[in-house]
């Protein structure tokens, strides 16, 4: 699995200017005028097929909604709040047009409240289901996790819709939060999601984004820190089939000293026109001394006709860092691995399945939500079954 291994810790030289904003992520603003309709040439839009966004760049408020089913353990509350209240609570503002539209069009916001020091063993599960791709839905969610609380939040997206959502996670000091967002949409869904996380002092946040379904899925996971000692682990897994566009954009903004970010995203691609994009932006501000960051993206290309774009970006404004590194690799099946397995009697398809399982296995284990792990393994299995069938059809047709 070493086709284009880029050099680890290829670090850009420190810049003299103390910029407040970074070119890696446009500044937050609720004002739509600050987010003009993109042409597709912008750095942040150049990988995304704009035509397939279908109304999410200029759409209006709508009455359509996602069906919501929630499992709320005792002590956790979910309520509707106004847009003004969301802002007053410290919502992290939208950085792009679809997110700004979500803020403008969603009406109010949904607030999930986990009180300080609540230790919630059972995962909070929010299932959002779309009715039809004719629906245009705007989402606005705020998660407030009190200091020293411990909680797991699982979001499951299924069905069909065109959906843009602005989500903010305000994580209190010393809290431990595990968030998983599963995009398991039907084939025609379009989903633009912006998750922004503010990590409290000495808090730990694990955020996992998993994308299997949808015609076009573009997810942001942004992290910033409210104080020193915060730690973020950003994980991701995606499996793109024929014609699917799955894009994951990460931004770790080290705006406080002694903070950590650790990013691992893995993806598999199969079928004509399967396209994945991974952008890993890390900014280490001048103030952010003694931080550690590592980001990694690996892609496994299972068939011809797929494209995996992978762009790590490390922007460093201080020389006083503990460690910074990145790795990005895109590879096909390793012939030697397949030969080894097959030389033990294992059929070619079974060998491919083992290798893909192996590829995702350690990541799935890291998610740390046992009730979900099994389901993820099964979904990977189901995705693979498509490929396996396809391969044999190709062989017969050849």
């Amino acid at each position, binding site marked *: 699995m070493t086709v284009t291994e880029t050099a680890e810790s290829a670090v850009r030289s420190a810049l003299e200017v103390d910029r407040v904003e970074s070119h890696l992520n446009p500044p937050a603003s609720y004002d739509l005028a600050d987010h003009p309709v993109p042409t597709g040439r912008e750095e942040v839009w150049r990988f995304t097929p704009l035509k397939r966004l279908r109304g999410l760049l200029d759409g209006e408020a709508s009455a359509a909604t996602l069906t919501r089913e929630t499992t709320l353990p005792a002590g956790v509350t979910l309520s509707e709040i106004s847009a003004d209240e969301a802002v007053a609570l410290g919502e992290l503002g939208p950085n792009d047009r679809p997110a700004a539209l979500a803020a403008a069009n969603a009406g109010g916001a949904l607030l999930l409240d986990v009180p300080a020091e609540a230790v919630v063993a059972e995962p909070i599960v929010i299932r959002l289901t779309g009715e039809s791709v004719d629906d245009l839905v705007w989402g606005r969610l705020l998660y407030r996790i009190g200091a020293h609380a411990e909680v797991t939040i699982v979001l499951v997206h299924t069905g069909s819709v065109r959906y843009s959502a602005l989500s903010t996670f305000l994580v209190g000091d010393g809290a431990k939060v595990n968030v998983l967002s599963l995009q398991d949409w039907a084939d025609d869904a379009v989903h633009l999601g912006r998750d922004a996380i503010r990590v409290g002092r000495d808090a730990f946040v694990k955020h996992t984004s998993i994308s299997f379904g949808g015609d076009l899925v573009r997810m942001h996971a942004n992290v910033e820190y409210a104080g020193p000692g915060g730690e973020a682990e950003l994980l991701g897994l995606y499996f793109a089939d024929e014609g699917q566009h799955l894009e994951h954009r990460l931004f770790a903004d080290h705006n406080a000293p002694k903070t950590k970010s650790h990013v691992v995203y893995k993806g598999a691609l199969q079928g004509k026109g399967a396209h994945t994009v991974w952008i890993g932006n890390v900014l280490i501000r001048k103030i952010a001394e003694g931080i550690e960051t590592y980001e990694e993206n690996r892609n496994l290309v299972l068939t011809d006709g797929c494209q995996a774009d992978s762009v790590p970006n490390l922007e460093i404004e201080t020389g006083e860092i503990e460690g910074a590194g990145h790795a990005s690799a895109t590879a096909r099946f390793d012939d030697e691995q397949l030969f080894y397995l097959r030389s*033990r*009697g*294992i059929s*070619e398809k079974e060998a491919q399945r083992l*290798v893909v399982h*192996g590829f995702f296995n*350690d990541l799935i284990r890291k998610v740390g939500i046992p009730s979900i792990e099994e389901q993820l393994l099964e979904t990977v299995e189901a995705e693979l079954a498509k490929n396996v069938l396809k391969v044999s059809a190709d062989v017969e047709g050849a």
Partner: protein
Amino acid sequence: MSTLEIKDLKVQVQTEDGPKEILKGVTLTIKDGETHAIMGPNGSGKSTLAYSVAGHPRYEITGGTVTLDGVDVLTMSVDERARAGLFLAMQYPVEVPGVSVSNFLRTAKTAIGGEAPKLRTWVKDVNGALDRMNLDATFSQRSVNEGFSGGEKKRHEIAQLELLDPKVAILDETDSGLDIDALKVVSEGVNRFRERDGKGVLLITHYTRILRYIKPDHVHVFVAGRVAESGGPELAEELEANGYERFLAAVPSGV
């Protein structure tokens, strides 16, 4: 019964400068229950022979035949060959990240046996085979060959030999990189396999020390893509004393 018959096998690989012939007509028959040792200098084509019999796609067969109990092996896929009873212990076993040894072994055993092994006895069998190779039980939860030391990889190959129980085993320098204790452990494993009914072994090595533990019936000197001379165990002793000089001299230069 198990007879591996290699007749006039010719093999080439594709290189940047076009095809390159590596095996230039290898003939070798391993009869029921026999152990053959192949010794030869670096680059003479020993691994090429092993890989070609196992069906590695890099090696292109340009002539000759290979049969196992009279059945053509060369038309079979890699996994069909294994299911037919061939086993290759590799010189450089491959790492398969994320796939546990236990999952790998069970999948392989199921493929070869045609049905899943009985869980209770299987776990015992696996632990026993690992234990006999001085690999503790934690190895079954580790990823295949990942982070294994050179010696551990070789012992893992022999544990597989015991569990998968092929008809004919080709051991490509299984003894290289083993310390004295590991060499004994591995030899005992191979000997246990040989004690089973009618098993054939083709043992590729550079060193006579392993032949003190695993006594071959025949020894072949392999030079420049063919068998230069065959004999009994005494041939190995001669090689130990005099090296390959006598055989290399007979080969035209430039090969």
